């Protein structure tokens, strides 16, 4: 008897409970999205955000994204120095690692490091190249079928 009543009760309540639970879950996730988990889970700060947060960031290590400014890339004995810009704000970067193959002026990069104490310089020890999902043929008129392009 107890089994039967428990089961039938569970089954009867099921549809209503299903709706309630569904509404709760949708509302909870909607709340999360509306409030924006936003900035906190972000992988990097853009250059302008990093400069705006300069005082609270101090010398903590974080990732900064921006475009490598043309004409600012210099090879040094320790690595590569350059400037990064995003939304009109520019920060000089002192980097101590060998940049990846695709690193070039005009490209978006993410650097890992921290602001140097007392200066506006950013000290980085890792560069990652960020690229978009736009894929444009480099030489659309010079395609030769059969030519080994992977070399």
């Amino acid at each position, binding site marked *: 008897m107890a089994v039967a009543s428990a089961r039938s009760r569970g089954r009867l309540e099921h549809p209503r409970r299903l709706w309630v*639970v569904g509404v709760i879950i949708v509302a909870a996730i909607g709340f999360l999205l509306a409030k*924006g988990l936003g900035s906190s889970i972000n992988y990097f700060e853009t250059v302008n955000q990093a400069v705006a947060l300069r005082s609270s960031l101090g010398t903590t290590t974080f990732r900064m994204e921006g475009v490598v400014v043309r004409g600012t890339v210099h090879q040094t004995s320790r690595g590569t120095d350059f400037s990064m810009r995003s939304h009109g704000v520019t920060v000089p970067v002192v980097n101590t690692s060998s940049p990846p193959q695709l690193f070039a002026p005009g490209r978006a990069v993410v650097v890992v490091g921290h602001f140097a104490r007392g200066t506006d310089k950013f000290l980085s020890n890792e560069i990652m190249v960020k690229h978009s999902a736009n894929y444009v043929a480099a030489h659309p008129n010079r395609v030769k079928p059969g030519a080994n392009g992977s070399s």
Partner: protein
Amino acid sequence: MWRDAALVAGKDIRVELRSRVATNQVLPFALLVLILFAFALDPDRGFLGQAAPGLFWVAVLFSAVLAVQRSFAIEASDHAREGLRLSGLDPAGIFLGKAAAVAAQLGVLEAVLTAGVVVLYGAHLEGALLLLGTCLAATVGLAAAGTAYGVLAASLRVRETLLPLLLLPVVAPVLLGATKAWEAGLAGHPAQGDPWLRLLAVFAVVYLALGVLAFGPLLEES
């Protein structure tokens, strides 16, 4: 549903108070994890203070797996599971009761571990409100997800190994959110912890809701 939940929670906590498995085994285990971290990361170089939030929550996570296993182990013998199933209690109530009991144990454990972190790692408790809120939300989330997956694995012969594999990836957001919120709290920027606190609260609500729904079929089938 709520009356059933209170009954089951009371039963689980009474069993725990009499058997003292949590106090005699889970709590020492959690403290041991804290001490082992101190051996692994040289205490003199300041790593421990920086890593304290992460280490604290990893210790809580491991202990939560043990607590969930214990919560279902007490029903493994003497056909207690069948008894529970045939008792006529609302499955959702059983779920909420067991989750509440696990949450209560985790709360005690976190209080002791917090003292451990302060003493052993030299952490300074600032933004106490945020830390407390984080503990509350994370504990409810862990207990809810743990209980839902606990019943999933409870009747299996390989539950000791399978439960961590199933549960730990699911509660990874709790580890992330709680660690970030604690980092913000300990560093004295409580405002930065608020989005993480929201994530933890949503996680807790979602898994409580899912558990209420799924516990019945899972208990019936296992």
